[in-house]
């Protein structure tokens, strides 16, 4: 049966609902860049976007039990983020919320993300990553693009490229490794 990201998210969400912080941490790291990007486009402030994205995931953690899966997880998270941003914009009495000790691990995760923020908010960095992807070996570029841009499953890529599914998985991973290497070398100063 064809799997998709929503299925895996559902498994992670169920585990997180049962108190599995590791599962929640995966969801945070997976969606944090997109939440941050959405908030930055709203606030145009790095500091406020950091603060609001942290608050978003705190709220997501607190309200996770109420998530019934009627919409995609990211849609739900996005709505929380944008509501917080709207309140932030409209409220003169906006104050930073203290991070509760029970979810301190979130603070660590968010701080580890700081060096990626500059990539997200600078269009030129995204364009450069795109340019790098074009230069990758054909087999890696095809597998990666089919997955990330066209949203094809590993099964579909395997069928189209007439390649074993294990090879597809490996090519996508290798493409990602080489993009990370490029990002660290060319776009992140301190690594």
């Amino acid at each position, binding site marked *: 049966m064809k*799997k998709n990201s929503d299925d895996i998210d559902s498994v992670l969400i169920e*585990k997180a609902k049962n108190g599995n912080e590791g599962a929640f*941490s995966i969801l945070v790291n997976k969606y944090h860049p997109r939440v941050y990007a959405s908030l930055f486009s709203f606030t145009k402030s790095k500091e406020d976007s950091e603060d609001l994205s942290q608050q978003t995931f705190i709220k997501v953690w607190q309200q996770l039990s109420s998530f019934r899966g009627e919409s995609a997880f990211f849609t739900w998270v996005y709505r929380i983020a944008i509501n917080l941003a709207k309140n932030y914009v409209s409220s003169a009495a906006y104050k930073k919320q203290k991070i509760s000790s029970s979810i301190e691990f979130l603070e660590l995760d968010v701080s*580890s993300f700081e060096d990626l923020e500059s990539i997200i908010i600078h269009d030129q960095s995204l*364009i450069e990553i*795109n340019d790098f992807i074009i230069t990758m070996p054909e087999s890696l570029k095809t597998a990666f693009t089919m997955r*990330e841009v066209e949203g094809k499953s590993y099964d579909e890529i395997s069928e189209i490229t007439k390649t074993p599914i294990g090879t597809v998985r*490996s090519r996508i991973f290798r493409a990602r490794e080489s993009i990370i290497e490029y990002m660290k070398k060319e776009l992140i100063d301190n690594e």
Partner: protein
Amino acid sequence: MNEIEIGEKLSALHDGELESSEIDELIDLVSKDTQLQKKLSFYSVMGMAANYESNNVVKIKSKKTKNIFSNLWLSNAMTAAASILLTLIFLNDNDFSRMNVDSKSFDQITSAINSKEAKNIAKQSEEYLTDHIMRIINDPSFMISNSNNIDLRNVGYKTNAIQGLGYSKGDENFQLRLEKKDFTLNSIKYWKHGNKMIYLVPMKDGRTLTLYGNISLSTAMTVAKSLNL
């Protein structure tokens, strides 16, 4: 597991391609390793970069067809505007009544939309609409999971298997969904998303047609009309 095996599994997890039986072990590993956690964020950022052109949301703003002439996207070409106007008139003549406002019913409608029930319905519809638009933008498989077997050759559009089972004609290509969903639209609504357009068209039979791609308003309406017969 060696480093490469872990990496491959993490990459597969990001894509939703990991077997459920493999998840627990990976959660354990990721929760203890900040580098693995960070890799997930890297994956997400490179996904944003790979989709940068199409996901560069400049502004998502709902517009109704009556405002088409305020849309800069169209205003550069008088001929395009003229053809759209003609299409609008043509469609209205062909019982696209859901796009019109009946002035005789205006007072009745005004009192109805102020009722609590109507407000609840409107709120719920708005949420459905938000979900729908967010899925179009964020889930590449959403637009290829429905209605791929609709034949549009009668209006000149052939299916394009390479472009994710969309339809194409000349420079225009798009994907569509046709489904029994009521967003309580009474007119075509459309949004600009990067270099693509999203159109939601209420059909006569209560279904909603969604079109997404490099497609003009006049094409969207032509396609809608061909399905609305």
